């Protein structure tokens, strides 16, 4: 007996209320964008400059004591958070201290770090500084630019690739889905104020890749069906294509999610934000390849006059030049 996520034959109607779905997606994008615009992202030091110190101690952490030790140094905005994680042992008490960039310097100041470490060592016995990271404002500004450039470049090159391999309507649909995914991911990071650092950019690009993967598989089937059923109405044809690939879409999402969830639970707190972004992105990406990419394709319409001959299916590279 096989485990089946979806029955062998499905005929869900994905486009019965396509305007509604598109509307919901648009609304989500607006909400995500608004959250980003109003609240802003909780940028990590990669993008904002400053210092983070990760401390570890066998004694329970009293944030107040830490704060009292650091405040006299007059370093401006200092955030102290205790970190909890199931992978920690009973006497592992971890805290993260974030200090804003000190405005006089382009570079990182070694004295600041030394002063903070000394103050904390005086306040708490057996405190260890397991990692100390400092980024100067000059570099953080450049990192933001590079990150924006990377995401834009990824979306642009994908646009070009799909345009070449399919038609421009497909490319627009795919890119709309990508932008949808990216904005929703940034939106949830700003809404929940999860720390947004360089690794999250990597996650964003992975989401772009994954979402695209999904979209391309659906589009590939759409293209095949367009040749096969020349008279079928576009809406029915899209529906058929999505139903045919539904089993695969869900299978891949589930296996990927299985892997990511185990990483989320067991992988430690250092990469939790990164893994969270990817889990979210895969859920959103799966949704968007059906409800955004295909819907936009339906909306834009497709050129049905495929002048190329269709009897090339026996050749395994039949589709390459289509």
């Amino acid at each position, binding site marked *: 007996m*096989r485990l*089946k996520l979806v029955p*062998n034959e499905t005929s869900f109607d994905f486009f019965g209320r396509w305007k509604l779905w598109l509307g919901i997606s648009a609304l989500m994008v607006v909400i995500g964008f608004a959250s980003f615009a109003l609240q802003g992202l909780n940028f990590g030091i990669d993008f904002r400059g400053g210092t983070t110190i990760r401390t*570890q101690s066998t004694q329970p952490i009293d944030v107040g004591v830490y704060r009292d030790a650091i405040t006299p140094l007059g370093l401006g905005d200092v955030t102290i958070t205790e970190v909890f994680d199931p*992978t920690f042992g009973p006497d592992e008490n971890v805290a993260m201290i974030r200090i804003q960039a000190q405005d006089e310097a382009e*570079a*990182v100041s*070694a004295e600041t770090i*030394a002063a903070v470490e000394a103050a904390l060592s005086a306040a708490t016995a057996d405190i260890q*500084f*397991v*990692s*100390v*990271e*400092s*980024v*100067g404002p000059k570099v953080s500004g450049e990192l933001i630019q*590079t990150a924006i450039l*990377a995401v834009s*470049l*990824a979306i642009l*090159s*994908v646009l070009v*690739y799909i345009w070449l391999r399919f038609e421009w309507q497909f490319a627009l649909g795919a890119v709309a889905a990508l932008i949808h995914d990216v904005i929703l991911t940034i939106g949830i990071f700003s809404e929940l104020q999860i720390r947004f650092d*360089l*690794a999250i950019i*990597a996650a964003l*690009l*992975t989401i772009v*890749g994954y979402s*695209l*993967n999904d979209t*391309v*598989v659906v589009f*590939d*089937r759409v293209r*095949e069906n367009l040749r096969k059923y020349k008279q079928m109405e576009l809406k029915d044809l899209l529906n058929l294509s999505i139903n045919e690939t539904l089993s*695969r879409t869900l*299978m*891949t999402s*589930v*296996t*990927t999610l*299985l*892997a990511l969830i*185990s*990483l989320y*639970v*067991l*992988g*430690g707190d*250092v*990469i939790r934000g*990164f893994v969270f972004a*990817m889990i979210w992105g895969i859920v959103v990406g799966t949704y968007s390849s059906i409800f955004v990419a295909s819907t936009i394709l339906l909306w834009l319409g497709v050129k049905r006059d495929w002048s190329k001959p269709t009897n090339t*299916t*026996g050749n*395994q*590279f039949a589709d*390459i030049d289509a």
Partner: protein
Amino acid sequence: MLQIESWKRVLVWLVCFGGLLLALPNVFYTRVEQSNDARAAIEMKGETAELAAAAGQWPSWMPSSLVNLGLDLRGGAHLLAEVQVEDVYAARMEAMWPEIRNALRDERGTVGTIRKQPSPADEIRVKISQPEGMARALEVVRGLSRPIQTLTGAGASDIEVRGQGDEIVVTLSEAEKLATDDRTVRQSLEIVRRRIDEVGTREPTIQRQGADRILIQVPGIGSASELKEIIGTTAQLTFNPVVARGTDPEARADVGQKVVPSLDQQGVYYTLETVPVVTGEELVDAQPAFDQNGRPAVNFRFNTSGARKFGDYTRDNIGAPFAIVLDDEVISAPVIQSHIPGGSGIITGNFTVEESTNLAVLLRAGALPAGLEFLEERTIGPELGQDSIDAGKVATVVAFVAVLGFMWASYGLFGIFANIALIINVGLIFGLLSLIGGTLTLPGIAGIVLTVGMAVDANVLIFERIREELKTAKGPARAIELGYEKALSAILDANITTFITAVILFAMGSGPVRGFAITLGLGILTSVFTAIFVTRLLVVIWFERRRPKTIEV
């Protein structure tokens, strides 16, 4: 039909076997690492019984390349330094001044007396008392310029000279600045490398980044500040004539003179001639030593030209004090007792043994041509790295088991084929990583876990397609064949697009993020290979043996 030529079969198995063999050393990481270290040591220092035993832990005929662990996994320090290339302009200008002075003196008849005017460090301003001789003066100074080779062509010279009223202004030309910048950064890189090598840490990464930056990563070092102590000091050693000694930091200094604090005597300031007699660049050796009172000191020796300059100066200035200056602080200012012809000497000061050793290292490696400013520094403790490795291992194993179980439950026998391919796939990723000397970082582990999840995608596409083809009942062999054929275009498109993003990530990212891009990209390559070739081969072999009339996917 379902046929694969024998040579293709052999090739597929060879690739898998080769990949797994390359991955094997990583399973015995510590053992292979010790063995590699011992081999390197034998190469350097000759064989001892201990080293031979350590080297013997891993057979020499086996591949022994390991995946490099990134700093976030191994612990260590990371620094991004910016070379202050402008520093060099000032030194260049300073060296230019005597030349200009001598050249203009010869023309005293036309230009009159000359006087150096205060100016920014990267230019020289000279006032002449007879402005009508300006044309001649400019001509003379321009005559001092040297042509430089640039990519854009010849014709550029190293200085720009213009007249401004009764002043001559000399600056470095843009082309010369660019050339100087490049040379400065390359020299700095070399000196940083020498200093780190002197201390002898393992596998440091020292790379140039962009126009004027140096990236330094040293695994296993305690903290970034320790690393900065080694490389952060300019160690610019000069020997300057002393004009006066006093306690006023604002003491009057004429043009061509500067006021410099003493290193160990609080509140003491020296007024020095800016142009040094000799510089640390002419040192050939420096060793920690002790002076006649048994206090730590540093012995040094000059090269021939340095020795001559030093000898001439001490001969002509017996009884006058001169200063040993390190990074704009006077270490000591002894009075010249006698002519020192041999070109060697001793630097005494209030050193500890450690400081004198450190100073000797810095002097030997040479001075940094310019200061370094640190833009980014990260220290990762080894415990945190180990925790991350442990957590990553557990997560990978759990993810693996979950995906394997799920595939088996969904596709039965075909699922098992896919699972074998998946295991080979992860082996191949590690094999390739070792082969290209890639670095595994924490996000890189996430990339592998993600690949475990996504690698089955290609197989899923194929299996789903086979299921569909089976419905139209063309017989199992035909269905399998069509399944592979028709799924191919979707597999290629889907993976090429993901690969594009991995490439962009690699090109734009740095450090850990780049590690993620590497494993993701390699994972895409290996998963396409295993899905298209390995599972297909497994399915075909099974099909040939059993010849089933019906199959269930």
